[in-house]
């Protein structure tokens, strides 16, 4: 049993994963959309500080899975425990979990009627009750981290896609989440912009953030993931550490999938 500790890359040395420190635990989870069994018998344990990449063909349930983690979708069977809180119909718990889990969407979903700064401070002010000045200060810090402090007073519509996605990441970070979820954060971007977003994500990984990413950027997976999970037809088909996963896939479907995307 290899833990993330033994991950080969040098830049991972800073993170500290301890066995007892479970960020997300999913046990025997099933989900249906009406009659369609979209997630089947999902079991997954993510440690604090771990970085998981989820890959798989379109429609395999990747998005649905990570949306279940912060209860944007409801599951019907099994358990999901996030940061020690089990997700049930209890609104209070859901709010609690969502405060600790940041999420970045494929289409950014910035609020177009607010400036960048307002986008960033909205949740800290109204959810955490942070004083405005303080929230703005920390927002500027995160904007600097994603390298666009000069855009603070513009509106989302005035930024490029890459810039918008970086703002979206900063917006999540402003809530000081313990876990970050990414749902194909780069697939709506032009090639030049993909890099600037990935850079930010790599930096985040280096800083030790627990991350679960749905992405097809295999370079990114190689560089930062502790584990790659491959899904098909709503099931986890295979998981492994990146090197092994890419060089030596076990399952037939994995092989097929990899042959298609790594040309």
């Amino acid at each position, binding site marked *: 049993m290899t833990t993330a500790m033994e991950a080969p890359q040098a830049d991972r040395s800073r993170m500290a994963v301890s066995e007892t420190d479970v960020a997300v635990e999913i046990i025997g989870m099933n989900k249906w959309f*009406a*009659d369609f069994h979209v997630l089947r018998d999902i079991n997954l344990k993510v440690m604090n500080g771990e970085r998981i990449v989820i890959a798989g063909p379109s429609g395999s349930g990747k998005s649905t899975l990570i949306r279940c983690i912060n209860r944007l979708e409801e599951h*019907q069977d099994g358990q999901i425990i996030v940061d020690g809180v089990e997700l049930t119909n209890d609104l209070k718990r859901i709010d609690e979990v969502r405060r600790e889990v940041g999420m970045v969407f494929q289409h950014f979903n910035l609020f177009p009627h607010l400036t960048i700064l307002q986008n960033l401070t909205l949740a800290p002010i109204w959810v955490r009750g942070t004083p405005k000045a303080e929230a703005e200060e920390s927002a500027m810090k995160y904007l600097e981290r994603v390298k666009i402090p000069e855009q603070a007073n513009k509106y989302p519509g005035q930024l490029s896609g890459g810039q918008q996605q970086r703002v979206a990441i900063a917006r999540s970070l402003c809530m000081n989440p313990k876990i970050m979820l990414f749902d194909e954060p780069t697939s709506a971007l032009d090639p030049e912009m993909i890099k600037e977003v990935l850079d930010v994500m790599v930096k985040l990984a280096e800083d030790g953030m627990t991350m679960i990413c749905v992405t097809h950027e295999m370079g990114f997976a190689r560089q930062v993931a502790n584990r790659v999970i491959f899904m098909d037809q709503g099931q*986890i088909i295979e*998981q492994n*550490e990146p090197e092994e996963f890419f060089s030596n896939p*076990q*399952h037939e479907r994995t092989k097929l999938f990899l042959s298609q995307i790594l040309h």
Partner: protein
Amino acid sequence: MADRSLTYVRTEMAEALPPPKSTTGISAWMRENLFSSPANSLLTIVGLALIIWLAIPIWNFLVADAVFSDPEGLRGEACRFEGVGACWIFIQARFSFFIYGFYPPEEIWRINLMFLIGVILMIPLLAPRAPFTRTAAVLFFLVFPFVAFFLMAGGILSLESVPTNRWGGLTLTLIISLIGIIVSMPVGILLALGRQSRLPVIKGFCIAFIELWRAVPLITVLFMASVMFPLFTPQGMQPDVLLRAIIGICLFESAYMAEVVRGGLQAIPRGQSEASFALGLSKPKTVALITLPQALKHVIPGIVNTFIALFKDTSLVSIIGIFELLNTVRAASSDIAWQFPTDAVTGYIFAGFVFWLFCFGMSRYSIYMENRLHTGHRR
């Protein structure tokens, strides 16, 4: 993965299972749609109470306490008692009056014939992918109005002449709205084109015309038509009240139609007319063959909506004493022979239902067209 090994390969694929009982079936549907939360349950109860509160009296009035037949022939006496609901025999007895107004009974076949022709011509216009659309459009917009007019008015081909003050009822409602749409379409198109013109005088004129009529309520236009038009026409050349009302409606409706068409014209990319110019087509030909057909196709739903509004608005001509559907209903309910406690209400319900039927039908049609346009011609 009870023992958390980093490497995991699924050996056996999980089969798709049917969803748990609790999420399907009628009880799940009710839980989801009616009782998903305490607040929702409360709403359901309120909704149910509202339905019961409304439905029982409505049912009683329309059905339980209503008079459906009169063994002694249709007479007003049958409904003259306390607590009577809707008096349907009243509608039965005066039905032909509501539909045809004062039109001479022995000439009513002319109206029916006119309706028949109209409906036959409209089928290819409204039905998707029907043949002869173009022929039907030409016939409907250019020929049918004249045929209909001569059928209605008579005076030629040994048809007895029927003056306009004997026209009435639903027939007149339909006539007014159809004339309204047939006239306002071309005028509206011209105004819309004029409003897009770069010639300041033409543009200004069209804007002023459109904005004036859109700003004022129809009832003032009708009042104006009835009291002011006579002042502005030479003595001895007096359009009758109906014609004046129709002129008023056409002016009013053209302005609305112009705005609808303008919306369509603006949606056509400039490349279309440039391509047409580059092919050597002149400006008028470009408008007629390229921009306008596309614009009109885009705004069919808008045109139908305008028509619905126009159809409802025809009821206002009753205020200046024209016997369209609503006014025939009112006249009938003040008839001595048909005095009973609910005469007015019964009449209003009937008129309301007829209007509703037409308007609802048209709005459904417009939604259907809209959906079809979204998908039409796409791969």
